[in-house]
């Protein structure tokens, strides 16, 4: 079958340009992924949008050169790609929030970048107060190559019970971050 091969290779863009792009991407990836998750919350969908975003970013980067503000630029590209993805999925019958609600979420997210950075710092404190076991579980479930099914099997749990446990840990962290943001200790 016909396939369009797209490669990121050194000859195409120059090694230095590529290295620069990867450094910027690494620094911005947390915010970029957050931006995508706000609109496409399901993990596997978000991964798909993330991958497509990286590809588009690299092509633009090659064509236009480094942007003035990599993070703002990459977030805006990600939002557009996420919207396109949502439209495609909606046509396929997938449940999505309405355009109006997604716009509202995107605006609030864009206006909360500094606040979200601060919350991330608070999260680090909260993670530090967790038991080693809970923290290790979170890191293994949220890591780049994580698979809930694999972790569940390793832990001798069902996927459903692991999801429940993760949900409880998430709730606990959310409350902890909220408490710290309001000036109270965890």
């Amino acid at each position, binding site marked *: *079958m*016909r*396939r*369009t*091969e*797209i*490669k*990121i*290779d050194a000859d195409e863009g120059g*090694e230095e340009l*590529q*290295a620069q792009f*990867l*450094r910027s991407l*690494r620094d911005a*990836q*947390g915010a970029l*992924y*957050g931006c995508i*998750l706000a609109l496409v*919350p*399901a*993990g*596997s*969908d978000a991964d*798909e949008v993330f*991958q*497509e975003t990286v590809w588009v970013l690299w092509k633009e980067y090659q064509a236009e050169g480094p942007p003035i503000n990599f993070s703002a630029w990459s977030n805006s590209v990600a939002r557009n790609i996420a919207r396109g993805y949502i439209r495609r999925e*909606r046509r*396929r*019958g997938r*449940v999505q*929030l*309405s355009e109006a*609600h997604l716009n*509202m*979420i995107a605006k609030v*997210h864009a206006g*909360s970048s500094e*606040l*979200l950075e601060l*919350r*991330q710092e608070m*999260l680090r404190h909260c*993670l530090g107060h967790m038991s080693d076991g809970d923290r290790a579980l*979170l*890191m*293994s479930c*949220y890591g*780049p*190559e*994580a698979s809930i*099914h694999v972790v569940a099997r390793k832990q001798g749990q069902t*996927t459903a019970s692991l999801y429940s446990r993760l949900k*409880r840990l*998430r*709730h*606990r962290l*959310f409350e902890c*971050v909220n408490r710290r943001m309001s000036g109270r200790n965890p």
Partner: protein
Amino acid sequence: MTQADDHLKDDPLIALADLALEGRLTREDALELEELLDGGLGAVQRYVQYVGLQAALHAEAAAAVDEDDFLTRIQSIEQRRRMMTSWKIAAAVMACACLMSFTVYKFATWPWVVASVVETSSQFEWKKGEQPVDGQVRIGDQLHMTSGFADLRFLNGAQISVRGPALLDVVSAKEVRLEYGQVLLNVPGDAAGFAVSTPDGRLVDLGTQFLVSRNTGVRTGATVRQGLIEIHPDEKFGTSETRRLATNEAAVFDPGKKRWVDAPPDWESLSTFDLKALGFEVLSGNVMYVPTFSGPLPEKHLSGKPGFHMIPERQSYRLTETIRMRDREGKIVPLGPGTIVTSFMLDSAGDRNGDWTASTTVTSKLPISGVIYELGELWIANDQLGLSGIKYDPTQGAGLELKNGPGGDTLSFSPDGRQMDLSVSASELERDQIRLIFVVDPAKEGPAK
């Protein structure tokens, strides 16, 4: 932390955000979430912050791994016709710890394979140019079959058997779109959430085996053999009404009412898939697979119309006494003790509505060695090849009466024994039976006397 300590578990906004994060938001949930978000900026901020926590956790976990791992996450996308998104992964390898320069980055790409074609049937054919490359199925592939069956195995464990003619798009690692044709899905618990979308709706598996049919001019239908599925009507019909089907339940899409309505299960199509799994492919005629049966054979065909019941009998059974079969040329061949055979009973029955005729053309993956159809020989072989739970009462005319001309039963094989044409005629209360014999291993002692 116990459930009792979980103060957020009853918070509706957080509960819905959790469902969204887990990819399990139904249409009703989405409407409820929208209503909550309409409650004010505070609700939207709270939603953004909670979802942001998920992103922050990913970022923390990513920060805990080294740079090589970050690079291996960078993947590229392949674009395919019909605007279907496809991926390729560009894996980056930083070969040297030396950070004097970043000149050692090297990306390799490969297509994103999500499934493979594990088996195809004898009558199977791809439409030229619309088939997977090297049997590997990739996201964005369009599989166009003109006939037969193809079995696909997805990396998440889901297995799909496709019956042609069929047109199937591979949307993602957990979703296919069926334009037309039939698919039977076996989805293990780990792969729950696998979906089949059709122009009439999207069927989401919740850990099950189910059949989806969509043929030109025929309504889309779904039958659940085991487990549970959820049907989401296509948005173009302006309804968000989802419904669930449990074991032995079925529904079809009613274009007039623009919604899915109850329907009788499509056992006949399921039977066709079962026969294919046994190595048989029914090219024409009414053949129903009856895997478990006890008591007397039914006087009326289970489908209500004249046809055949295919009953698996002893499989790989070592004969202790001689039986006699007719080979494909019609010559009598004795099979002596020690011969290992597999037997299938093809039992025909009418509709109890006067004289009847049934015909079929069946292909077999393995060549059919011979058949037993005379009443006496059938009766003798019952003890060894028949199943103990079935009452093989000798009813009038149970054997075939092969003769030329109208009114007689006819039987013929292709030269390689892999195709059989059979036609039987009988009166209202009669039945005709034929045993298909596969000699798995001939007796070592030589031909029996």
